[in-house]
């Protein structure tokens, strides 16, 4: 069992280095930087646009990303590829995993799926709002911007980590640490 493809976890340093090298390729050969949150803007705009194209085009923020441009562009393809890559990796590892309510969450807030799903929905809405206000997320700012030494990205990553730590301790407290 020395096949690395079947080893369920790789060293975080190896994984991070791999993402770094992947970035060389996207910068040098694709003219792009890894990112994901703009795709959520395009997807939301396309869904709204299916109902009312005029409303989307009259919104300057949506128009900036969508007017005269394809919905499915490089990053949208990346996000779909990301899903498939994670799926392939999970399948190759041979590890079966299904999670509805995480253990840590269940310990603190109970086993209700409805409560967890609602919290996940709210969390997703809040984080994407923040990402677009800041101009990127953990990949666009945290990884791609960080490696370019962009001031914006380091400000985002630092504040994001502090806020995430404060929120996590507010939600789960010191005792939560023994449940992860």
């Amino acid at each position, binding site marked *: 069992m020395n096949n690395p493809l079947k080893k369920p976890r790789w060293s975080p340093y190896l994984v991070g280095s791999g*993402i770094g090298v992947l970035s060389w390729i996207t910068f040098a050969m694709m003219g792009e930087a890894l990112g994901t949150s703009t795709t959520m803007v395009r997807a939301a705009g396309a869904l709204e646009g299916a109902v009312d194209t005029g409303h989307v085009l009259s919104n300057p923020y949506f128009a900036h990303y969508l007017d005269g441009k394809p919905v499915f562009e490089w990053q949208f393809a990346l996000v779909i590829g990301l*899903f498939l890559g994670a799926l392939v990796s999970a399948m190759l590892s041979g590890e079966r995993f299904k999670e509805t309510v995480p253990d840590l969450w269940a310990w603190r807030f109970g086993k209700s799926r409805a409560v967890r799903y609602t919290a*996940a929905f709210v969390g997703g809405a809040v984080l994407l709002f923040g990402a677009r206000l800041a101009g990127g997320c953990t990949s666009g700012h945290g990884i791609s911007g960080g490696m370019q030494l962009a001031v914006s990205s380091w400000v985002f990553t630092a504040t994001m980590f502090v806020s995430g730590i404060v929120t996590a301790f507010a939600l789960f407290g010191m005792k939560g640490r023994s449940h992860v």
Partner: protein
Amino acid sequence: MFNAPLFADPSTLAKGALAGLIFGFLLQRGGVTRYRVILGQFLLKDFTVLKIMLAAVVVGAVGIYGMLAMGLLEQTDLHIKPTVLLGNALGGVIFGVGMALLGYCPGTGVGAVADGSMHAIFGLLGMLVGAAALAEMQPWFKQHVLQTGDLGKVTLPSETGLSPWLFIGAIALLSVVGFSLLRRGKPGTEAGAETRTPALP
């Protein structure tokens, strides 16, 4: 759809999909498509997230600034996001709250659904709503918030006049020292290194 074809050219899509396949594979193998690994980071128990991010930043930076120095990349090939201090910081704070609540970021959330997380699906739906809400409110933010600390597309080297290698070296050194101290402090407590799937209720 919007005064343009729905799809970009096939070669662009193929390149994006290929980059995504590798990215998704690595995120899943790194363990960051798991809620407990992300929350483990915010609860300062499991440093997998920071290790992956800092390794990616250092290796990526060496390549990018190396290629710039060798003339393989031009300054115009960079993708620097504009600095608006209040927007970047406020966005970061809001993002951190949402990420601690959801347990994923956008990229790891997409990977988490593939990895078997049901609650991540609701996180992604929430993200679409968050994107739509921001789009509606962005003009207001642009007028009232996104003016404070507007420095343009600046980097740490361009702002300070120092060599980028100084920053790359410092980030690498601090990471190596930090993670070695962490390892010495509490050996074998990192959940990210765990290979077994936890039992589910």
